[in-house]
């Protein structure tokens, strides 16, 4: 099995050639523009450190791994943890049953508090009750606005997806737009469907829904291109995530469509696109704030018995609009990946 059928040297020659070429290029070719060198040194949000007893808090989300939006939530939570002398345990799983198992895992570790997203609340109901029975305070964030109170959570930080969808719908309604296309990057995701339903409800014109495969950008681009071609009356593209919006810009460009683009959620490249005017505006739900407040509220509860939102009302972090008029104020923070 281990015998090679070609002389070793014949296989090594190309490898050496590639390595040599790479070394040559490395030696000679620094980029004169862009890159790390051009990036400003980014100091994170920092506010000293509390001298309260060390706590352990678990943040359990339904995030897919490697998504810019969820990374921002995590950064907010980490910032709060650093300030509040908290050890943060972050875990995530898209599958509801696996997310429930992660919450159980946190209970088993006897953490001092749990922050959880309730995207599929029924699947998490039992395990949340278990945590409360074990005397662990639980707060909700991002998803679960309708159920946080009945499940006995202390507070909730997030936005109402339907209301934010309606806010976007209302905003484009007054601009002479007649036919909107709402692009969903994960078929069957409740919060995404709610956003598009909200847009449809508040927008006076016609709203179509388009499903794309969010894990494959060339396919996202082709599919939006195809839809714009199929129906040339579409004059507004609404996307539900920043990377999808940036791809939609290319699709609109190439089809020669006159459609404008609005999106939910921000990242640093999207901020640049708003500055450049290729994207009209973004509905920001301030994910950093969600992560930060969720962890910070558990610290306040543990150390001072406070309830954010008074235990009655959710704490809304959105919808906030970012457009050309206020994008400058956000740009610096977005570049650091915290807004």
């Amino acid at each position, binding site marked *: *099995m*281990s*015998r*090679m*059928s*070609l002389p070793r040297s014949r296989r090594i020659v190309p490898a050496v050639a*590639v*390595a040599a*070429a*790479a070394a040559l*290029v*490395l030696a000679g*070719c*620094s*980029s*004169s*523009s*862009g*890159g*790390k*060198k*051009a*990036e400003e040194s*980014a100091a994170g949000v920092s506010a000293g450190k509390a001298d309260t007893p060390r706590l352990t808090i678990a943040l359990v989300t339904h995030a*897919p*791994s*490697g*998504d*810019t939006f*969820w*990374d921002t939530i995590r950064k907010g939570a980490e910032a709060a943890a650093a300030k509040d002398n908290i050890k943060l345990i972050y875990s995530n799983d898209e599958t509801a049953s696996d997310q429930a198992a992660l919450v159980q895992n946190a209970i088993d570790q006897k953490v001092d508090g749990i922050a959880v997203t309730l995207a599929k609340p029924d699947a998490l109901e039992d395990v949340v009750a278990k945590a409360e029975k074990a005397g662990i305070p639980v707060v909700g964030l991002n998803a679960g606005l309708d159920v946080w109170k009945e499940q006995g959570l202390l507070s909730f930080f997030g936005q109402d997806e339907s209301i934010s969808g309606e806010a976007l719908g209302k905003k484009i309604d007054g601009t002479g737009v007649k036919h909107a296309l709402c692009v969903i990057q994960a*078929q069957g995701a409740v919060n995404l469907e709610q956003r598009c339903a909200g847009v449809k409800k508040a927008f006076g014109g016609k709203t179509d*829904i*388009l*499903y794309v495969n969010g*894990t*494959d*950008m*060339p*396919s996202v*681009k*082709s*599919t939006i*291109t*195809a*839809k714009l*071609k*199929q*129906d040339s009356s579409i004059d507004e593209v609404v996307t539900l995530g920043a*990377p999808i919006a*940036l*791809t939609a810009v*290319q699709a609109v460009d*190439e*089809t020669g469509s006159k459609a404008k683009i609005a999106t939910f959620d921000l*990242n640093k*490249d999207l901020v*640049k696109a708003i500055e450049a005017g290729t994207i009209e505006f973004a509905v920001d739900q301030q994910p950093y704030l969600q992560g930060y407040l969720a962890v910070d509220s558990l610290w306040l509860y543990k150390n001072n018995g406070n309830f954010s939102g008074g235990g009655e009302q959710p704490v809304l972090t959105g919808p906030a609009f970012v457009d050309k008029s206020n994008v400058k104020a956000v740009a610096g923070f977005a570049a650091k*990946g915290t807004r």
Partner: protein
Amino acid sequence: MSMTQHAEPAVTTPPAPGPKETDGRTAQRSTALRLLARPEVGVFLGALAVLLFFLITAPPMRDAGSMANILYQSSTIGIMALPVALLMIGGEFDLSSGVAVIASALTAAMITYQLSMNVWVGVLLALAMSLAVGFLNGWLLVRTGLPSFLITLGTFLILQGINLAVTKLVTGNVATDDISDMDGFSQAKAVFASSFDVGGVEVKITVVWWLVFAALATWVLLRTRYGNWIFAVGGNKDSARAVGVPVTFTKISLFMLVGFGAWFVGMHQLFAFNTVQSGEGVGQELIYIAAAVIGGCLLTGGAGSAIGPVFGAFMFGMVQQGIVYAGWNPDWFKAFLGVMLLGATLINLWVSRAATRR
């Protein structure tokens, strides 16, 4: 899959599928029937049926620009489906091919940005990385004798984790930084992600590369010794070794070819979209394998062609976009996709059966 025993006799020379073959059996049938029996003809007819179907039901499909869009989508699948098909003919799977595309793009983007280098530095080092991953897959396979399904499932998970963890470690974010303002970007974009005008229709360069690679792969399969080796190791590894086919070299190099494909598509994604999210690519490996299988490559190895997967990828791209062009209820999208693919594959199967029946 190659580990199962084959009943058929040892393949010492490739089945050499080609009209030139004139042994007694095929000579008894007409040229038309012989042509129909070839796997890529079946998929060609299947694709033609799907095309006609959508030309009738989806008026926007009749526009040349729509065809360019479909070809673009097909090419990003098809460029990867080619080496995946060759590997499959050689008797192995690669489940890591989907995330390998993203791994390559991430490597190039991060090296370029973090070291403030000319983008070509990142592009070349990403190539080295992709070939190394392919080599590792192949080397583990021949060293351990484990099924490629298990080994590449392992590398699939490892790469998925590394993509996320290293990106986060290096950039502090889960997506790479925009490199579109860096030296060499426009050159690289011209190679990997540009487009050109054909009679007023914008055609993506990936379509050209796709067809060039397909022609190259066809030539290698049918006209070179290496092509013979691929068929031989996929048919029966032990007999192939017994007659002097370098099995180890063939298998490892096939995995490295998949690495090359992943690099190429990864570079396209990087230069077309400027940044890469580290979580992308999962699930694409199945689409590449599907395109190869629809294109007539046997799941068990030893048979197939390079031109079949071209039509397989084309059919996939056509169904995916055709549903949108037709303006059907998007709730049903995935179900439509599945039905169309099954239907097309059945036509393919039926044609080749009808043609080989006597």
